[in-house]
């Protein structure tokens, strides 16, 4: 019998496989393809205190081995989200992680306070979106700002908080330590890398937003490196993500020091990716006689 359970900030997940925010909606669209109860957790699309319309289109572009997106955190606002999406997810035997976005510290606090009485297991605080002009990444590129926003959100949150870190920084360990100093319960990384694509035929930017966040298999080595660095810099549990498409990819992140992983862009080219990764991790454990998935976490030093 193999044990795939992992614990993040006191919340036990049946396995370390989660979805990456923004790639999975609130689970409804992918419930046609996978049994959400097979997943360790569903991480929702970012939600703000009020509805956000997002950016103009085109919002996505394909690049070699990856994609750029500049959705701009379109979301229906926390009221509709809490009324519609949380009850939907409660029908499944999985943990609910709500990704929270905001333009100001007050916005984040407003959302986490309104989610305080909801059956939400963890809050992931998005301080790393590269596609919005205010908030988002502005909080995630300065260690003082990271520590400050973490402390403020933590003091108002009823659920444990995960700070989602940006890779668009010189030293990821400085940001991970800042989140830890501010009282974060966990960190997740990496959000997307800021990129650009130019349409040489139209001689214009491919994305209406000019820049977008790069995701997909091409960014995986950068993400593995950053997870490894962060894991060796802080005591907090780490949720690793960035280009995970297969169980082998997920296991790399666990070995680098992640306690759990999130599957994002892979959902777009393989709607069953999440569950296939759960099964692949189990098969790997059987193949190598690993009784407990926790043996893999940070095993490569």
């Amino acid at each position: 019998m193999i044990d795939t359970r992992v614990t993040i900030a006191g919340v036990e997940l049946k396995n370390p496989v989660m979805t990456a925010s923004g790639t999975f909606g609130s689970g409804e669209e992918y419930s046609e393809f996978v049994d959400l109860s097979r997943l360790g957790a569903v991480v929702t699309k970012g939600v703000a205190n009020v509805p956000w319309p997002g950016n103009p289109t085109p919002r996505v572009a394909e690049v070699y081995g990856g994609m750029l997106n500049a959705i701009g955190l379109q979301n229906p606002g926390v009221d509709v989200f809490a009324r519609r999406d949380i009850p939907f997810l409660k029908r499944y035997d999985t943990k609910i992680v709500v990704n929270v976005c905001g333009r100001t510290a007050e916005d984040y606090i407003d959302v986490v306070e309104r989610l305080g009485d909801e059956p939400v297991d963890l809050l992931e605080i998005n301080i790393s979106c590269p596609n919005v002009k205010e908030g988002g990444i502005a909080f995630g590129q300065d260690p003082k700002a990271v520590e400050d926003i973490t402390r403020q959100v933590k003091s108002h949150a009823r659920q444990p908080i995960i700070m989602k870190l940006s890779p668009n920084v010189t030293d990821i360990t400085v940001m991970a330590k800042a989140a830890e100093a501010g009282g974060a319960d966990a960190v997740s990384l990496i959000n997307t890398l800021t990129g650009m694509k130019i349409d040489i035929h139209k001689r214009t930017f491919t994305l209406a937003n000019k820049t977008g966040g790069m995701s997909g298999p091409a960014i995986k080595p950068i993400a593995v490196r950053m997870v490894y660095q962060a894991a060796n810099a802080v005591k907090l549990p780490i949720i690793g993500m960035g280009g995970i498409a297969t169980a082998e990819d997920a296991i790399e992140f666990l070995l680098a020091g992640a306690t759990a992983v999130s599957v994002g862009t892979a959902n777009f080219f393989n709607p069953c990716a999440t569950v296939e990764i759960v099964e692949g991790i189990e098969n790997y454990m059987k193949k190598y006689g690993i009784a407990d998935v926790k043996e893999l976490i940070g095993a490569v030093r």
Partner: protein
Amino acid sequence: MSKIKMTAKVVSQEMIGTDIYSMWIQAEGIAAQTRAGQFVSVYTKDASKLLPRPISICEIDREAGTLRLVYRIAGGGTKEFSGYRAGDTVTVLGPLGNGFPEIAADRHAFLIGGGIGIPPMLELAKELHCEKTAVLGYRDAQLFLKEEFESYAKVVVATEDGSVGTKGNVLDAIREQGLTDSDSVILACGPTPMLRALKAFAAEHRIECWLSLEERMACGVGACLACVCQTGEVDAHSNVHNKRICKDGPVFEAGEVEL
């Protein structure tokens, strides 16, 4: 209805115009539940190209369990598809989106297609049982699918270079021939400027009008919010003035969307 991701067999592949290809694929599970105006996501075999290509359905043969995809080479992905031969495999996900609405038998349907927006109108021409006029807009005298439309509808052609039919676009043809009256209903697919002009024309003449929209997509199933269009009213799902083209569309009542 449920979406199916499957490996389909290519039945045939044919070039029917410059960079325009017609591919029949064997996809029983999808063909059985597809209606005119829906689309499929087609995946490349080149793993460096991650995202599926949304391609409209040109014809459905439910008995044979096959679908016809007519597409234009727009980049490396569709270039790869054009190289598939009978017997090759292709991975598809579908059916996606909602099709065109049912049209009552006493109406006169104008099926308007511009360029690579022409193909999905062919299955619609087959399925509708009312009076039908197809207005097809081409660049030049390469009138792909035109003869096939003639089996199901009266056909009017516009060409940008004036080589066949009305010189100009589909709206020029409609105006020139005075094609519409109050029983008319417009159903259209094509480039955004064409759809924008049709929306204005339909509003001016108080004609019912349905438009099939296109946008860059990622997931194709409504999760990623890449392919949104603006709406006049706040949308019930998004709670903002946006609808998802892949899931809520691609066909919208013209008054619903801002183009």
